[in-house]
């Protein structure tokens, strides 16, 4: 089952519609990472609203996607994890550490907007507030 990857402005949106096999997940990962560079996008949203089970391979793949996309210059956010799925995940110790997660697609877009704006400010105008003044 192929996962459609849509482009929306500067972001890529991968919307998972049904349960995926491990091979499908690997394929999604490769396709997303390839497209991040090709389309010069700044953010990736993976929508998992339709998933009612999340196993360790799926969680690892999502984490890999986030880390790989960051290396290619894009922020990743996972959206739409169901409450039951979330609780099952933490009980299994699958906590997606270091990966941004928000409630739904709308929040995901708002989150990426905030992040990409922040980064622009950081690199161009702002010095990190914690750095000591140089004399």
């Amino acid at each position, binding site marked *: 089952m192929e996962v459609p990857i849509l482009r929306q402005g500067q972001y890529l949106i991968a919307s998972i519609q049904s349960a995926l096999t491990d091979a499908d997940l690997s394929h999604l990962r490769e396709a997303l990472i390839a497209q991040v560079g090709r389309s010069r996008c700044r953010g990736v949203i993976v929508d998992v609203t339709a998933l009612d089970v999340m196993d360790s391979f799926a969680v690892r793949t999502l984490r890999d996607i986030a880390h790989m996309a960051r290396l290619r210059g894009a922020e990743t956010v*996972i*959206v739409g*994890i169901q*409450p*039951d799925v*979330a*609780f099952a*995940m*933490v*009980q299994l110790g699958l*906590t*997606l*550490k*270091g*990966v*941004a*997660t*928000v*409630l*739904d697609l709308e*929040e995901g877009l*708002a*989150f990426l907007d*905030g*992040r990409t*704006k*922040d*980064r622009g400010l*950081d*690199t161009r105008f702002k010095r*990190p507030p*914690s*750095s000591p003044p140089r004399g």
Partner: protein
Amino acid sequence: MADTKRSMSVSTRAADSPALSESSAGLLRELVAHLRQNRTQLREEWARRITRAELLTAMTEEEIFAEATAVYDNYVEALETGTFEALQAYSRRLSERIIPRGVETDEVVGIVLLLRDVLARSLFNKYQDNVEKLNRILDSYEPAANRIANTVAVGFVEERERIIRQQQEAIRELSTPVLQVRERLLILPIIGVIDPQRARQLTEQLLRAIRANRAKVVVIDVTGVAAMDSGVANHLVQTVEASRLLGATVIVTGLSPEIAQTLVTIGVDLSEMATVGDLQGGIEEAERLLADRAAPTLGSLATREIAPESQR
């Protein structure tokens, strides 16, 4: 002296058991007739003994006498018919009446055993000339008396447990509100004892509320929690993690000094948990997070701390 007689009866019972079953019904009839005949006197003796042993101190003497009469009649009836349903129902009703008045289990067991002693003593007096008959009477009386004592005690304890279950249920329903303070900010005040079942229920309610209210920040206030073991603490950590997966930051407030010491001593990993001293501070922190809409989750806070360093 009574003890030697009873031990004798055990040895004779083994020898003449076939004959016993035939006559035991007759003996029981005789026994019941004796108890009916001496009802007033035995009942008074029993009530006197209850007062002397300082049982049922929560009740007045008239009440004790009234209950004693009812128990006595039910007791004799159970002996006569060999059925315990009426007695069971009565002891349940009795328990319903006396539990709210603070009557303890040992008192209820105590008065039933006293009645058994009073009746046994009267049997000794009546048959003291005929030891052989006394033994046979006691043979048929003792098992029934023990079963009656059992029935009343079990009835009392069951009634008590039913009340406890009912109250637990009520407390559980009362005590898990998830409140929206303002848009995107929820408060979950936890009060009382957290057992694993309640912890699970709390988590489920919180996660649903996060989704329904589209919450960004949740303040969990544990000021009302007296103690926390490692199981509950780990559950709290899991709740924080699960909330993060739904895009909400959790701030825990009001950890008491005792709980703070326990958690560090038993080595629960709380490094992922944002904690603030009291509820007021927690809400202030939450408002600050909400104002800064760009950085809504702990995860993004963490990556953001790394980002400037790599850019330097």
